């Protein structure tokens, strides 16, 4: 059958600069760069290029760049090149289109329509270089009343278990299998260094990560991979994964070729078989059933671990979150529709779910209306790209945020979106030993630590500018936000005034 697809990218090699070191040939797992068998000349097959930018970053002569393939489309806004390419792929395979990383479509990014406040004249701003600035966050449920034995100056009842974060940033769930062990190690090292938590995802906790248990959140998803009493007690908290922003409503298929000996041992399934996470948990068909799973996990861990429940941001997320709080979740995690993934059906990734900004604002507002906001913690994720996004998320009501893609970008990811192929040249979304060896966990951790420390300083600067010296005072403080370029309905849902009001 004729392959009607054309390259997306064009490899641009500057012949004057190229020193023929052939590093690009050795580095490209997609085999874009190659030496001609006939002439020995250095060539490139642009069709195979996914624009991971490994070669352009590493080229010692700066002789490489990746450009767009110069083919123009037919001029129709509807029938553009990507649309045509999808049809070509499906007409040649009959398959479900697979994609990776977050929704790339040009939907509104509401973060960019929310501006932050600062103090002028009427109240002083605070200089975080000289004055204390609190960014510590506790995650967990809080009792409605605190009973204190005043004579003994002790609590009459123990507090529910809490996670203590020194920065308002967690690392999002990424399973061993979808990412490499070195990626998880880097996140674990960074979490320990920063005083926060990584999340091992649904693929079990590799034994090399067990020493990081105090900084681990272990996940329970519908496939129940690697879940046993030891696992449940190995981390600091448990997260029930109901959904993921990139693929709300569906499960996951980790293909057999990614199930090597180590992944198999950690997930506790045979090597080479598909690891299938069904779309629903078949023990959860209702809020009451969710409560049942939450409490089975609490029973299995002696009520010593907070239980988080993660859902994708979908249409009725506010009502769902209310149910989750009432089901006994200590932490509610909302993942917006731009959240990343190792693999998802493209149509789901690009068309299902709602933006995290609107979902977060709606959930926070609903929980406050119902008087239960203080009984749970709220974590937002799905395109938190910089410290200003963190500040906006907290002001919209989040206790903390999770970052996945941003942490991976810090390690080298260039968002090419080809994770599902298993040929990640940066050693992140792959199990190929020659590729995973490219990611040094210590060095990757250092980059992630640097990123989060930089963000945290910026968060302190922004809070200080507002005259706020503790992140608790920023949470749900929507007066610190003003909208631009938003309609009245959007302002209403976000709960913010227009700039100038």
């Amino acid at each position, binding site marked *: 059958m004729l392959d009607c697809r054309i390259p997306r990218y064009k490899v641009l090699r500057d012949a004057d600069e190229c020193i023929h070191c052939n590093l690009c040939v050795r580095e490209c797992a997609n085999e874009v760069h190659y030496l001609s068998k006939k002439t020995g000349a250095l060539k490139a097959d642009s069709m195979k290029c996914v624009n991971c930018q490994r070669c352009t970053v590493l080229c010692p002569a700066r002789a490489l760049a990746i450009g767009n393939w110069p083919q123009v489309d037919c001029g129709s806004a509807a029938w553009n090149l990507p649309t045509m390419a999808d049809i070509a792929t499906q007409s040649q395979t009959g398959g479900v289109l697979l994609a990776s990383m977050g929704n790339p479509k040009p939907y509104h990014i509401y973060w960019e329509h929310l501006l932050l406040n600062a103090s002028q004249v009427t109240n002083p701003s605070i200089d975080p270089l000289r004055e204390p600035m609190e960014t510590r966050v506790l995650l967990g449920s809080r009792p409605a009343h605190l009973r204190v034995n005043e004579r003994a100056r002790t609590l009459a009842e123990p507090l529910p278990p809490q996670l203590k974060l020194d920065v308002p940033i967690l690392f999002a769930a990424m399973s061993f299998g979808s990412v490499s062990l070195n990626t998880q190690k880097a996140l674990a090292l960074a979490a320990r260094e920063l005083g926060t938590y990584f999340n091992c995802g649904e693929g079990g906790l590799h034994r090399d990560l067990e020493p990081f248990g105090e900084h681990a959140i272990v996940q329970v998803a519908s496939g129940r991979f690697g879940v046993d009493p030891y696992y449940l007690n190995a981390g600091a908290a448990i997260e029930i994964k109901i959904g993921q922003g990139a693929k709300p409503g569906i499960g996951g298929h980790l293909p057999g070729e990614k199930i090597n000996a180590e992944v198999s041992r950690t997930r506790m399934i045979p090597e080479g078989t598909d690891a*299938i996470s069904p779309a629903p948990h078949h023990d959860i068909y209702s809020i009451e059933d969710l409560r049942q799973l939450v409490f089975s996990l609490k029973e299995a861990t002696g009520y010593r671990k907070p239980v988080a429940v993660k859902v994708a941001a979908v249409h009725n997320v506010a009502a769902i979150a209310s149910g989750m709080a009432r089901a006994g979740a200590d932490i509610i995690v909302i993942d917006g529709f731009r959240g990343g993934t190792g693999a998802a059906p493209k149509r789901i990734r690009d068309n299902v779910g709602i933006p995290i900004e609107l979902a977060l604002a709606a959930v926070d507002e609903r929980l406050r209306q119902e008087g239960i906001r203080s009984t749970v913690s709220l974590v937002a994720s799905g395109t938190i790209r910089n410290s200003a996004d963190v500040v906006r998320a907290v002001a919209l009501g989040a206790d903390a945020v999770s970052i996945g893609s941003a942490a991976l970008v810090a390690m080298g990811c260039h968002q090419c979106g080809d994770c599902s192929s298993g040929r990640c040249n940066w050693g992140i979304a792959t199990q190929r030993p020659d590729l995973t060896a490219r990611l040094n966990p210590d060095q990757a951790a250092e980059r992630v630590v640097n990123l989060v420390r930089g963000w945290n300083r910026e968060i302190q600067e922004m809070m200080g500018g507002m005259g706020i010296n503790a992140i608790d005072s920023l949470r749900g403080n929507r007066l610190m936000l003003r909208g631009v370029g938003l309609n009245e309905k959007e302002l209403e849902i976000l709960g913010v005034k227009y700039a100038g009001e």
Partner: protein
Amino acid sequence: MSDQTTFEREGGAGLPEHPLPSAPEVTAVTVEQNAAAQAVAEGAMAVETTSVASVTVELGTSHFREANAAVRAALEQANTVVLTEVFAQRYLGCAMKAGKRLEIHGTPGNDLACYMDGGSVEVFGSAQDQTANTMNAGSVVVHGRSGDATGYAMRGGELLIRDDAGWRAAINMKQYGDRRPMVVIGGDAGDFLGEYMAGGVVVLMGRPGSHLASGMHGGVVYLQRAHVPSNLPQGLVACDLDAEDAKVLGGLLARYDRCFAGEVRPDGTVAAAAPLEAFVALRPASSRPYAALYAS
């Protein structure tokens, strides 16, 4: 520390110990009609009673949290705990370890023996939904029927049900290394038996519902030749037993008879294992049923 207070995996690296909290004071509520058990729950017999063979705890209508705290406290004192007047308390036997045994009289609630890790549970009555949910090892024997999602995501151990099982029994079961879950159902099973099954063994004496073993990509379902549906889902093959099948199935049928033979069911029939010759083995044709589903 007793063996109920830490979780260790065979060959696992040393982890910080995770002590379970001691039984809350409320246990007295749950066991007030049972002086011995109450004493146990309060720790009064802590030293003398470690050699006690069994302790009886009456659960009545106590809340699951109180009930499970009382059961855990009793298991600290004796390796076998007999539960009477059980009225649908959830999570009984949750994460219970090897060497511990629960004998349950009445009706245990959902998630019986969830995450169980080697313990033994025998129910003299019927069980509700999600019995042996994500069970790792051990034995559950039910002298009655069991509800929906029975044996959900089991990874090891045995689950024997004298009568019927509800919908979606033995789904998502998996096996790894020497862990191979075994589910024996003496009666009929509801729809979707063995859905997405990735490992382990299911023996079904009665009739399956519709959508039998859809998405199955590992393990084996033994069912009677006469009960194999005519519209078997694509990707499954029914074949005659080989020597290994006969050994595994023969052992499980004998085990069923040892547990239940001669017991009279509510419908008046007498429990007995079907003959080995009547069975065929249902297996997936591929461990990668969806390998060709995607394009990128």
